[in-house]
């Protein structure tokens, strides 16, 4: 590199260094202007903000909408409870304060764990809950020594309350502690200040309606952490009241009648699909879920062999047994597989022509030759074996599908099961087996792979009660109900209605004959092919009772103007008429008595 090049290079470097210096001067000037602006020109503004620091926008939680029964009885509402809260930047020494508090009132490890986790994402001037559900004596104990605990205060907390406890557990569901995962992106603002969300049942189904809209307030806090004043910006809007179709008295009657038994009850208004009662036994107390379930209680509920958490009316799939017969019969009439008056041979058992296997009637010796109405009244198995063979599995399945079997009813509850209407295709896909004709025979009396939920049974029963319209069951009161007319002749339906009335007056459901209301119904017994087992395959409670058949009963009343349709399943209840029948009767009486009562008083 020669001297000229070197000089040239250094000249260029100097030039570029000058440009750099210019840049530094410019940026320094920008910085200086900004600092001057903040510290001199806008000093008053920032000085005020500093002394009045700081404005916090705190959310106000809305009240959750109430849930009412059809007569306005409160089934779920918000109650005020007392909680102990600590404002971190006001408390002297957090862990020491908690330690001293423990000498006055119990604070367990679970409370502390929750407190610490809440504390980690709270602002230092926001109170954090330490103890919930303070009892009056605890309130008094703290109030006396309150002055010794700066930063600790009693606050009121709004809490969901279910006044009837376990009575509506499965239908109302419950609210529980909101977890971050449950808030979808962009919904944070909708849940500001809220710490619970509908987890199941109607609470989950109508979450958006019930939740309400949070409000907010500006809280000004000075540099020492004292609240200067609060200013309301937007008040919270309470969630909408949910008017349900439920009837408290009917639900209570159902629960009482089911006491000590496992199973489910569904009662519908057959004219419009109003769900009057829906009960699953055993139940649980939803109030225990509101603040987050304790681990001990959760373990107990989970390990209970009676599975109280299972919603049996919505998700329990049971073989309908003989309660399926009215629907099979109506399908057969419609498909002209039989006429109403045609008598079919009875007997002890039925054999598929050309085969040896005997399909026995439930009644030793069987029945004589009977027509359709008599066969339903007596629950004549041999008659229905023949009907099933005449229809064949495809027609039989299609017929049952008309009544809503094998499909979700569309009720406004999350997690409904669809049940099963089997077909040869279904069997091949599901179990890789070939359909044989004996399975068609068994389907005729509601056994085998045919499975129905109690809600589906009630819905199907309603369609006979109302003269051939398939209603969509619903829990929210609504003036226009969704019904689908079924393509059955009024004569055919009348035959089935008469037969079901006969079953109660003189057939298998005789125990209900003396009821003041004219009840039409049908008994059913679902055979249990296997005992209940736990996950590892061990037989649970190896007692006779669990090997007993399920008892079923479907009914509607009054027979001439049906106002209620009921389906009852009593697990291991033996014969339907004996155990499930009285439950149906209690429910019907409860409803028809209360509805007619005001008219009587006039």
């Amino acid at each position, binding site marked *: *590199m020669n001297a000229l090049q070197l000089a040239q*290079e250094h000249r*260029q*470097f*100097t030039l*570029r*260094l000058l*440009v*750099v*210096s210019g840049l*530094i001067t410019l*940026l*320094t000037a*920008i*910085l*200086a202007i*900004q*600092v*001057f602006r*903040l*510290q*001199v020109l*806008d*000093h008053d*503004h*920032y*000085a005020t*903000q*500093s*002394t009045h*620091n*700081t*404005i*916090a*926008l705190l959310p106000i939680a809305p009240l959750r909408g109430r849930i009412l029964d059809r007569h306005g009885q409160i089934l779920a509402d918000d109650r005020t409870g007392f909680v102990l809260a600590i404002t971190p*930047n006001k408390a002297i020494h957090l862990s020491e304060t908690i330690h001293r508090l423990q000498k006055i009132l119990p604070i367990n490890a679970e409370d502390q764990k929750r407190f610490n986790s809440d504390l980690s994402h709270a*602002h*230092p001037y926001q109170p954090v809950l330490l103890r919930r559900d303070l009892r009056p004596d605890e309130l008094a104990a703290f109030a006396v020594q309150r002055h010794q605990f700066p930063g600790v205060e009693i606050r009121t907390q709004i809490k969901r309350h279910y006044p009837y406890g376990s009575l509506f557990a499965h239908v109302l569901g419950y609210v529980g502690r909101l977890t971050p995962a449950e808030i979808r992106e962009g919904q944070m603002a909708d849940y500001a200040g809220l710490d619970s969300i509908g987890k199941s049942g109607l609470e989950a189904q109508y979450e958006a309606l019930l939740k309400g809209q949070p409000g907010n307030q500006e809280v000004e806090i000075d*540099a*020492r*952490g004292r609240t200067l004043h609060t200013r309301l910006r937007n008040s919270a809007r309470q969630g909408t009241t949910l008017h349900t179709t439920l009837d408290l008295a009917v639900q209570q009657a159902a629960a009482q009648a089911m006491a000590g038994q496992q199973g489910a009850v569904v009662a519908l208004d057959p004219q419009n699909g109003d769900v009057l009662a829906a009960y699953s036994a055993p139940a649980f107390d939803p109030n225990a879920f509101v603040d987050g379930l304790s681990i001990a209680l959760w373990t107990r509920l989970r390990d209970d062999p009676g599975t109280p958490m299972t919603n049996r009316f919505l998700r329990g799939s049971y073989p309908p047994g003989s309660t399926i017969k009215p629907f099979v019969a109506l399908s057969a009439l419609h498909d002209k597989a039989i006429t109403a008056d045609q008598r079919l041979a009875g007997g002890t058992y039925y054999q598929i022509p050309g085969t040896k296997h005997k399909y026995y009637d439930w009644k030793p010796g069987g029945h004589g030759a009977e027509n359709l109405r008599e066969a339903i009244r007596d629950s004549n198995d041999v008659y229905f074996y023949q009907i099933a063979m005449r229809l064949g599995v495809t027609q039989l399945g299609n017929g049952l599908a008309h009544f809503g079997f094998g499909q979700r009813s569309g009720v406004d509850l999350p997690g409904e099961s669809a049940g099963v209407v089997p077909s040869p295709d279904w069997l091949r896909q599901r179990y890789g087996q070939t359909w044989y004709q004996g399975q068609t025979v068994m389907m005729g009396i509601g056994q085998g792979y045919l499975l129905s939920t109690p809600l589906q049974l009630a819905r199907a029963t309603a369609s006979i009660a109302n003269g051939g319209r398939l209603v969509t069951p619903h829990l929210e009161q609504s003036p226009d109900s969704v019904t689908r007319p079924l393509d059955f002749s009024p004569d055919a339906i009348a035959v089935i209605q008469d037969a079901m009335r006969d079953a109660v007056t003189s057939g298998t459901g005789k125990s209900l004959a003396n009821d003041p209301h004219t009840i039409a119904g049908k008994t059913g017994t679902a055979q249990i092919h296997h005992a209940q087992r736990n996950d590892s395959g061990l037989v649970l409670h190896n007692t006779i009772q669990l090997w007993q058949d399920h008892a079923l009963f479907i009914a509607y009343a009054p027979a001439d103007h049906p106002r209620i349709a009921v389906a009852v399943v009593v697990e291991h209840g033996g014969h339907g008429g004996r155990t499930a029948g009285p439950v149906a009767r209690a429910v019907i009486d409860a409803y028809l008595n209360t509805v007619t009562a005001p008219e009587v008083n006039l």
Partner: protein
Amino acid sequence: MNWRIRLLRPLRKLDPALMTGIVILMLISLAVLYSGSQESIRVVLAQLLRFAVGIVVLVIVANTPPERIRAWAPALYAIGIILLAITLVMGKTSLGARRWLGVGPLVFQPSELMKLALPLFLAYYYSQQENVRHWLSAIAGFVLIAIPFLLIAKEPDLGTAAQIGAAGVFMMWLAGARRRWFVGLIILVAVSGPVLWHFLHGYQKERILTFLDPQRDPLGAGYHIIQSMIAVGSGGFWGKGWFNGTQVNLDFLPEAQTDFVFAGFAEEFGLVGVIVLISTYLLIVLRGLVIAYESRDSFGRLIAGTLSLTFFLYIFINMGMTTGILPVVGVPLPLISYGGTAMLTFMIGLGILMSVHAHPRTHE
């Protein structure tokens, strides 16, 4: 030669102007941290210890001739790149980013090494380059910058990546690459901005949106900026006085001892203090530029010029974000913020400046 001369001789390599600046900054740092830490002697002693270690390192570097530093440059760059690659594969993840590399109990950020290694290697490369204006040497420079830039951006640590990239571009500017490259680069950044927006992480977008409008989330992302501006603004002309900063001492100001230390300083010492602080920084930066100007050695002047300019960039970014003219990026205030790693980097950089000044024209 007696022991006293032997001990004091290395100190002769120190530059009086730079040392004056360093000592002033040290005193400011200790004063601010003492107040901001609720008068904790422990914090002050820890910072003092870091200064002591930093000064020792600075003296050692200042006594190392530039040609030896230059000889290490390629190896440092290579090690830096390898460590960055290892960090991406098996680094410690913290807050969603892989930035830390742990060896036993030691944890450090390889990107910190790159802050010096890249300028050194670029200076090494351009000081031996015959024709800097040729397009190939510009492309080579961009590639050398792009490798660490992309590795750090992938961590993701966009703030550090941008600073390292900026240091590289400064270097190319001082080395004499043609102006058209810089014009092109500015246009490219301006045009690709909206496109790159889609590749940013959520928190990065949030920071930029918050910068544009802090009030959109006054309790969340905007909290830092709002509280920091209140601290600076409420300081006024004379400041609230030592220990009297309410923003700092009542915990309204987050990161008051690290990234937002300037806000606490400005609150307590006011515009007067800020003028003293900025003047001290400018003293160091301008002294560095003068050292670069006076150096007859091309490696020396390139590294001295670039380090001075980068030092200024850090000051500007930190004060800029604290006063609300730049988005919040995690950059410490040189020699003031609490913390060791960054201070060591700055001390080594200042040591290199002194080395360049103390060993004139030994090369060529």
